[in-house]
């Protein structure tokens, strides 16, 4: 008798987005046991060493045959894995350890290899670094291959149905090569994390995958119908029709989105009449860089540093900050990264700073005002940023500047830190540009004076809008008054852009207005060429840029100048040609 089974959800770590719907194909790794046999004489010892060497040569030959097969198909990533595996197979340290166990402990080649492999797997599993931890799979893989040859077994392959979802304990590097991944709809593994081999391959090939699902996967039988959501990190076993349908819709949507993103990622952000625009990402931590680049960001226009300071009991020391900035520098390489020094005030959770609760934190003791007062905090951050600047292409930016005196004071501290580091013989980028956020209306009004002090401006629209219009947008009763298209806000922005151009310094925008597709043409028309926004907004803004001309953008700006309300200006901005 057959019963209709209830849908069941199994959670894991989504490592490669996308939806797969299909039958399960279950793969299990054979468990290898130790025989416990002890060798009795020198001849046996020599024979076992010989057998080990023979099994290694056969393994190498097998991998080389696989390499030859791959070279034809042009699978570079598989090639790398296999090339690496030949080095594991012939590793002198591996042979040393195995031979030592055979000679000194009178183990068989099989037992010696199992012991050595297990020890190495443990060694890698205990490493700090997630990537290195994941390398245990490569060691295990190489060990398994030699073991098979010691036992006189060649690699076995099973055929699996087209469009299946592979269910495995973990996928070894060899598994992922042996698998014809074009026939696989997705895979789920019990073990593994974001940097496991299965995860890397899945991501590289765009195959939906969920790893680290745990022992619940054991319950899945071959051929059972599954839905896999690689974004949410979830499997649905025995999905009912409604569930399947909703996932099919999601699948379709995802495919369209990927195609759209792909079509925009590598094309330049240039208007139809050839005006190039730089699109950058706003980020908070090193991990955000992946998404920034995937979405076509050319660099980072705003690295917020608050994350380093929040949700903890004490100030992060120079070393911790340095590592954070250095990670970003190394990851970004030559791409520009603008770092904003801390923008913390009484509204943020940093109890160790001893900041008093204020009536009006946004008009209070915050950001550069704290830094110029508590130079210990400021010094430490500047030292860490400067040290990390040697590894990348950094710019530094001070928030909440409202007067010429403040930026001068900040520059004095920065200069002092530079002198200190130079004296200590520490490397840093002596050319690192210095800039300020323009977010206080006063700064916008004296943009001409401030421009003489810095290399660049970055317009922070969120605060500029709330300060200019005296509106707290978190307050529902007045939030509707918060409007980036208000003529007063736009006039300030125009002023800042024009004064920057007049002084010959760079100007960018890193507030939400930069990521608002309705504002793109208007801002272009004003002369803005650098937009920084959350990574996900980049493709849409790029599309806006590519679909317009500078002439059109300038017309919109000219027209907007004559209008007296935010609504009318927005309407012009939304108009099509």
């Amino acid at each position, binding site marked *: 008798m057959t019963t209709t089974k209830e849908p069941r959800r199994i959670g894991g770590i989504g490592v490669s987005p996308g939806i797969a719907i299909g039958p399960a194909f279950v793969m299990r790794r054979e468990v290898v046991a130790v025989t416990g046999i002890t060798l009795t004489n020198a001849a046996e010892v020599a024979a076992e060493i010989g057998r080990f060497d023979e099994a290694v040569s056969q393994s190498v030959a097998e991998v080389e045959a696989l390499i030859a097969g791959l070279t034809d198909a042009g699978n570079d990533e598989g090639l790398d894995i296999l090339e690496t595996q030949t*080095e594991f197979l012939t590793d002198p*340290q591996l042979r040393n350890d195995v031979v030592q166990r055979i000679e000194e402990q009178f183990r068989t080649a099989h037992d010696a290899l199992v012991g050595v492999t297990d020890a190495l797997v443990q060694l890698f599993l205990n490493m700090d670094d997630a990537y290195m931890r994941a390398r245990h799979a490569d060691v295990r893989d190489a060990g398994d291959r030699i073991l098979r040859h010691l036992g006189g077994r060649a690699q076995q392959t099973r055929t699996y149905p087209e469009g299946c979802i592979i269910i495995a304990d973990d996928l070894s590097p060899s598994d992922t090569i042996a698998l014809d991944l074009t026939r696989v709809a997705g895979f789920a593994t019990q073990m593994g994390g974001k940097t496991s081999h299965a995860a890397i391959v899945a991501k590289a090939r765009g195959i939906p995958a969920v790893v680290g699902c745990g022992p619940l996967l054991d319950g899945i039988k071959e051929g059972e119908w599954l839905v896999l959501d690689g974004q949410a990190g979830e499997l649905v076993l025995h999905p009912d029709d409604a569930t399947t349908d909703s996932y099919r819709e999601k699948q379709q949507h995802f495919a369209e989105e990927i195609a759209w993103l792909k079509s925009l990622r590598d094309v330049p952000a240039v208007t139809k009449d050839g005006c190039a625009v730089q699109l950058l990402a706003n980020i908070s931590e090193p991990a955000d860089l992946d998404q920034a680049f995937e979405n076509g960001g050319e660099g980072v226009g705003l690295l917020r540093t608050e994350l380093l300071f929040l949700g903890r009991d004490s100030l992060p020391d120079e070393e911790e900050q340095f590592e954070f900035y250095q990670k970003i520098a190394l990851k970004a390489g030559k791409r520009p990264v603008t770092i904003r020094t801390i923008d913390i005030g009484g509204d943020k959770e940093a109890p160790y700073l001893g900041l008093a609760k204020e009536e009006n934190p946004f008009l209070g003791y915050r950001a550069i005002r704290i830094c110029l007062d508590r130079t210990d905090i400021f010094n430490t951050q500047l030292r860490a940023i400067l040290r990390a600047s040697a590894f990348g292409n950094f710019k530094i930016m001070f928030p909440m500047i409202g007067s010429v005196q403040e930026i001068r004071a900040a520059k004095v501290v920065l200069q002092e830190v530079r002198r200190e580091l130079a004296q200590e013989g520490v490397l840093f980028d002596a050319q690192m540009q210095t800039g300020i956020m323009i977010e206080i209306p006063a700064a916008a009004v004296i943009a001409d004076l401030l421009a003489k002090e810095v290399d660049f401006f970055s317009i922070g629209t969120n605060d500029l809008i709330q300060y200019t219009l005296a509106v707290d947008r978190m307050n529902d009763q007045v939030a509707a008054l918060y409007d980036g298209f208000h003529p007063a806000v736009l006039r300030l922005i125009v002023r800042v852009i024009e004064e920057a151009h007049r002084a010959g310094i760079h100007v960018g925008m890193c507030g939400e207005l930069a990521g608002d597709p309705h504002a793109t043409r208007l801002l272009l028309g004003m002369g803005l060429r650098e937009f920084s926004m959350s990574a996900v907004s980049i493709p849409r803004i790029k599309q806006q840029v590519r679909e317009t001309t500078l002439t059109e953008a300038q017309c919109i700006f000219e027209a907007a100048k004559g209008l007296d309300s935010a609504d009318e200006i927005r309407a012009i901005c939304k108009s099509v040609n």
Partner: protein
Amino acid sequence: MISKEYTILAPEGIHARPATALVRLVKKFKSGISLKKGEKMIQLNSMLNILALSTKGGDRVSVVIDGEDEDEAALALDVFFKDLIA
């Protein structure tokens, strides 16, 4: 004997792919070639040892080369590390 110091600039350190290339390069020479990171010193002809050293971006390492073709090896390794840190 030649000893040279480098800073690894690749953010992920020496990963499997460059390690493979490094081992293969090292095997071309007769000289004994080792890598020192802090107190730890390993022979560079072993993938396992290179990975076990768990080098990260920003680490200072020194390469120590000793043998008849050490000049040649030093030159080749210099090119390799310049590439890795570019």
